[in-house]
């Protein structure tokens, strides 16, 4: 709970008076302030700069140096002030934390110096306020990276590496060639062979020299064997590389689906298909076209080039803009092709034989290529042709800068959005942790609370101080407030997993078993709304069906049925009706108490209703009474 809000705790407690008339049970006792001191100013001398604050301000956070008795070690008797030989600049932030409840991180401060000061004063960095937390985290990460770099370079010089498995080392070597010399060698070798393969594909088709017979042959056919050997060598290297990557990949399935591996496969497939199909002459034409796919080997360079990868990524992220460009171009092409076709229909020997044939003209004109293989001859055709070329410039020139600027904008935006998303997740997690921390603190103290209350009543003060050492006064007051709310509503706070458990068990308990309502055989029966439920529950011997699905719930508006793992006490319909005939008189159970010694006296006008109820156990029982049963009757206090 923030310190500033702690100052409002008296208000919240006073406002709890609003619950009192509504509650049906007495409230727990309020924690008392032992040795309440008058507030005094204390002087903190930090390297000569004097700060002054109230003592209670510092005591808001009792688990820090300044809030606990640890500061007494720094107390200077002569000057009656606390002297700290530390940086006064950072101390300013720390003292503001006590005052406002928010810890800020000044940007000019060095991160490691700040961390040291926080550690000295016993403050966890996690409570840095939202306004400064991201900055703090960023700086911390940078610092950590710097340290890691230093460590790495140190390690590299020594040559010692943490032991990874062979597979992991291989994967690391593949992904990051700078990790070891072997990886670097492999990187360059594969790069070389990619280049060789691509160049081979290109040179294969160059006509080199003539053979007798005045026929020009491409080199590929002239030196077929040589080229075949080269190709084989490259493909073998690529295959080996692919298999090695497949072996080393941490997630093989994901690796197979990745783009790079698809490119690899497509690059080497034609060779193998060619090997298989050389004997079949019919499909040799298809085989030739397959060789086209060998050019995909050039994409393997993208592993070697960061820039290519970024380009691919940005193209992917600008797909919609590109799509729009394509769409608008298509529209324009169709329009102009149609117009040109009908304009040129009249002229003889026109090349514009159909609209699709005019597409070619339109595209060539709009992109300002102008091959000249198709030209309009009619006047209308020429007019529309010029309009086409002018508009072509516009249609192409306009979206391109938009796309380019979109590239950079989207790229940066993505980066920033990802960053913000991660920060938001972290922030929400922190808020959630703080919330559960506060409620968990309450639940935790409740379990210890039994002991405390027992001790309080017996008046043993030393033990009391011993047990309440952990919780500050403010915390205990806050817990008292929550306890009052519990009493007002007759429900208790529990933590999430217990709640789930209860829900599951209640849904399993929907089968009514036939059991006679022998109420008297239930012992340990308590229906006091003030009973505290123990975690430990015992099974009552005569178990019965949960009365949760009583139809008579409406009549008995005072019957309160719990869903618990305990077998419930049930009564037959008749007996319940009988009870309801008595009017909804206070069916209060005598206050059977599970806690140690607190006895909640029942109002004298109340009589335990129902002779069938067993007498309540004596209040003097120890804390191990299991008390709750299911059919609670809410106490209506008699007036």
């Amino acid at each position, binding site marked *: 709970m923030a310190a500033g809000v702690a100052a409002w*705790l008296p208000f919240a407690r006073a406002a709890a008076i609003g619950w009192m008339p509504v509650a049906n049970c007495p409230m727990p006792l309020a924690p008392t302030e032992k040795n309440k001191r008058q507030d005094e100013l204390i002087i903190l001398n930090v390297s000569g700069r004097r700060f002054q604050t109230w003592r209670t301000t510092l005591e808001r956070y009792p688990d820090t140096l300044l809030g606990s008795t640890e500061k007494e070690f720094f107390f200077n008797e002569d000057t009656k002030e606390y002297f700290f030989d530390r940086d006064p600049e950072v101390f300013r932030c720390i003292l503001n934390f006590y*005052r406002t409840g928010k810890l800020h991180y000044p940007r000019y401060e060095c991160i490691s110096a700040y961390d040291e000061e926080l550690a000295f004063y016993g403050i966890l960095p996690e409570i840095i306020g939202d306004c400064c937390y991201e900055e703090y985290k960023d700086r911390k990460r940078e610092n950590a990276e710097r340290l890691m770099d230093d460590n790495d370079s140190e390690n590299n010089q020594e040559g010692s590496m943490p032991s990874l498995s062979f597979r992991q080392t291989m994967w690391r070597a593949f992904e990051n060639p700078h990790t070891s010399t072997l990886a670097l060698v492999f990187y360059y070798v594969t790069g070389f062979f990619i280049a060789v393969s691509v160049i081979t594909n290109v040179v294969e088709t160059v006509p080199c020299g003539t053979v007798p017979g005045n026929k020009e042959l491409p080199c590929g056919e002239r030196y077929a064997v040589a080229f075949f050997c080269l190709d084989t060598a490259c493909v073998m290297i690529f295959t080996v590389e692919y298999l090695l990557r497949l072996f080393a990949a941490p997630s093989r399935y994901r690796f197979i689906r990745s783009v790079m591996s698809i490119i690899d496969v497509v690059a080497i497939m034609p060779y193998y298909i060619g090997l298989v199909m050389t004997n079949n002459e019919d499909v040799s034409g298809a085989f030739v076209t397959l060789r086209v796919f060998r050019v995909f080997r050039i994409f393997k360079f993208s592993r070697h080039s960061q820039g290519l990868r970024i380009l691919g990524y940005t193209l992917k992220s600008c797909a919609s803009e590109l799509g729009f460009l394509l769409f608008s171009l298509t529209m324009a092409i169709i329009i102009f092709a149609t117009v040109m076709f009908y304009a040129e229909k009249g002229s003889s020997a026109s090349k514009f034989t159909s609209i699709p044939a005019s597409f070619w003209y339109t595209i060539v004109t709009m992109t300002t290529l102008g091959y000249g293989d198709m030209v309009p001859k009619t006047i209308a055709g020429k007019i529309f042709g010029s309009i086409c070329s002018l508009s072509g410039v516009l249609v192409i020139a306009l979206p391109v800068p938009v796309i380019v600027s979109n590239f950079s904008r989207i790229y940066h935006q993505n980066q920033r959005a990802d960053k913000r998303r991660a920060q938001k997740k972290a922030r929400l997690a922190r808020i959630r942790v703080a919330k559960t921390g506060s409620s968990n603190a309450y639940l935790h103290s409740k379990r210890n609370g039994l002991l405390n209350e027992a001790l309080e009543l017996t008046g043993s003060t030393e033990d009391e101080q011993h047990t309440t050492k952990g919780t500050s006064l403010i915390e205990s007051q806050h817990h008292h407030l929550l306890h009052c709310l519990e009493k007002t509503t007759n429900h208790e706070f529990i933590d999430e997993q217990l709640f789930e458990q209860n829900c599951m068990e209640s849904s399993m308990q929907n089968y009514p078993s036939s059991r006679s309502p022998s109420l008297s055989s239930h012992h340990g029966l308590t229906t006091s709304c003030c009973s505290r439920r123990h975690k430990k529950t015992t099974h009552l011997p005569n178990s019965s069906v949960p009365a949760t699905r009583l139809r008579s719930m409406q009549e008995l508006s005072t019957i309160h049925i719990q869903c618990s793992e305990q077998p419930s006490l049930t009564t037959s319909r008749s007996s319940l009706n009988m009870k309801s005939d008595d009017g909804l008189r206070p069916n209060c159970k005598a206050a059977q108490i599970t806690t140690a010694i607190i006895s909640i006296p029942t109002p004298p006008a109340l009589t335990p209703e129902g002779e069938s109820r067993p007498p309540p156990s004596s209040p003097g029982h120890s804390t191990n009474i299991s008390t709750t049963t299911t059919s609670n009757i809410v106490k209506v206090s008699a007036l």
Partner: protein
Amino acid sequence: MKLLPCSAAKTTSPVTQNTVEDEMEMATVRHRPEALELLEAQSKFTKKELQILYRGFKNECPSGVVNEETFKEIYSQFFPQGDSTTYAHFLFNAFDTDHNGSVSFEDFVMGLSILLRGTVQEKLNWAFNLYDINKDGYITKEEMLDIMKAIYDMMGKCTYPVLKEDTPRQHVETFFQKMDKNKDGVVTIDEFIESCQKDENIMRSMQLFENVI
């Protein structure tokens, strides 16, 4: 009428007559409370107690007035498990005695003075005022149901026993049986005070928070 911190005269009227049209104005609204002596005379707190109260108040609301949003926020920090906004809304209306949409330090002190230092009669009066949402002098079942639901909302979801849908309604029925003497479906202030005075538990718990400050 906007009060700036540099204005010389201290004034008693709160500045929140300003409408919320101009957000900038609202942000710079300042309010100075009455003089310490005056407040000491009007409330039942000592000077020291008033000082402590004001320091806490001003810490959380530097502008000197609490609006409903801040109020809800502050109150919800005490009840992390449930949703306390509805109850905080009713509480805010109970503290904002002049219904101007904000709680100044005077309102705050007067309310606390009743709650912590008032007679039992005054406290019961205050509680009645809290429950009577439309301030017409009668608590109807609907009003009580709203209040009850708001209180149960503060418990949140993870409770033992599990909160049922009609638990608040049952609780309201219990309350009305106890309080509504002539069974006319509403509880008047006299019925309320009379019924509460007869209940020992309530009387005792009214004294519970005497030593809060």
